[in-house]
């Protein structure tokens, strides 16, 4: 399942992370999950939100630099071996993982993995028909492509 991710450039200084979060809060947009990659000087904030188009609009209007990336969301049982199983599926496909992050949804027994593949369409085609490709949890409703 493809999911839209918003990436934001943030400087690594106190208060900088709060700015986009406050903008989204003021717009009533809820963040489903996020990941922060950082260096000593700047960071890249990656967000999965419902209504990503509206979120992008308010962030850009406020002067943020936003890019949209296709992520692949995979739902796995939240127990040992869940991630390994997915990676194994990808092992022989030649698809590379640029980065990934995960979150568990409220029901607690499932985890959602978010992959940034170098070739998301190829990754999806490899997963087609596989039980991994279905997302049964509704926590990503509205985040999909």
């Amino acid at each position, binding site marked *: 399942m493809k999911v839209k991710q918003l*990436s934001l*450039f*943030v400087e690594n200084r106190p208060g900088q992370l709060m700015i986009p979060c406050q903008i989204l809060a003021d717009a009533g947009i809820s963040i489903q999950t996020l990941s922060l990659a950082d*260096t000593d000087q*700047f960071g*890249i904030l990656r967000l999965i939100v419902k209504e990503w188009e509206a979120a992008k609009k308010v962030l850009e209007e406020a*002067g943020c*630099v936003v*890019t949209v990336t296709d992520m692949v969301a995979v739902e796995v049982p939240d127990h040992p071996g869940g991630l390994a199983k997915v990676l194994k599926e990808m092992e022989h496909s030649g698809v590379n993982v640029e*980065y990934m992050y995960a979150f568990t949804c409220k029901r607690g027994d499932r985890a959602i993995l978010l992959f940034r593949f170098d070739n998301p369409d190829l990754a999806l085609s490899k997963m087609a028909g596989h039980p991994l490709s279905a997302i049964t949890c509704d926590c990503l409703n509205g985040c999909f492509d």
Partner: protein
Amino acid sequence: MPAPLVPNVIFDPAETLPRPDLEALQLARLRRTVDHVRRAPFFQRELAARGLTGDSLRSLDDVRRLPFTVKENLRAHYPLDLLAVPREDLARIHGSSGTTGTPTFVAYTAKDLDTWSGLCARFLRAGGLSPAHTVQISFGYGLFTGGFGLHYGAEMVGAAILPAAAGNTDRQIQLLKDIGADALVCTPSYALTIAETMKKQGVSPGDLNLSLGFFGAEPWTEDMRVEIEKELGILAFNNYGLSEVIGPGVSGECPYRDGMHVQEDNFIIECLDPETLEPVPDGELGELVITTINKEAMPFLRYRTRDIARLNHEPCPCGRTGVRMSRVTGRSDDMLIIRGVNIFPSQIEEALLRIEGVAPHYQIIVDRPGYLDELTVRVEIRPDSFSDEMRVMQQLRDRIARRVQTVTGVRCAIELAPPETLARFEGKAKRVVDRRLSKGGL
């Protein structure tokens, strides 16, 4: 060999004097100038203190024994105390606007005016202006040397002059359309203003008769030239001068347009390290220092222009023998010394402009946290160059750092800043923050 952009016409045979003859002429004129300039009490004192007379100069290298003249000397002798001729011999007085301090005045005898017109005629002719042309002069006419300098230069070429003067851009465009000038003279930034206004009015270069432009009086870049040439449909030529030395006409481009030929029969030009005041080799940036050797009213010895440029003594295919100078790339007043290396903010700007994904907005921060200077450049990224991948962003940062290091020779830290976060400047930009100064040690 590259082709000339316009027919290569030499206005004055002095432009192609063989180097030995040129240098012999320079030495003779330098000696005469040193004796002549003593009529101004300031120079009399300076030269007497060093025991220098015209006769004591044995070779051109001896120019380095002469005292420097700086802008402050002019201010201290306000308004006209540096004259080397009686006041009644003056034919014209010009002045600088005083944007960097009190205004200063410069003066000309009738012979000086004739010399000056000839110098302007040389570079106008070299850039393709012919007696058959009409030239619209959109420089200010007044104390500023640009308008009158180019006016009488174009007149000496034999062209028809439309003295439009600066300002009222709508009217400038109307004149370009109605009178149909072949050549435009103004500042490069005003040329861009005219081009921009034309676009808004729906006037295309095809509606005009312009084929040439002569731009100067402020530093500009190759990118600006490309823009001006495209938007106005012309060939644009650069020229250089400053009122303290004579005005426009110190140097100008030839049809090969690879540097500006200095009119060395009138000026001795040096390119010096602004800190050590030692000459720098060809191709290296230094401060231009100019001695006038063919002026009557107000000759200057070794005037420190504060303009930073490079010299090139290679022969030019056009046959002009005057040394070529590059564009002015900065001011020595802005020079930074980082770990003993001279750096000009303009060098860093030049490096940044050549990197894709970077906006021309930056800030230079110099600090000395311990004993060593640290150079940090904050650069705005462009929205389209931002990536969600850390690897891509770090590559961009490394590319900028390498580029700046190659140009300046100094290792620096690059900080990426979000778009439109760094200060914008109207007019003279203040892009350097030197924290060493506030720590009291330099």
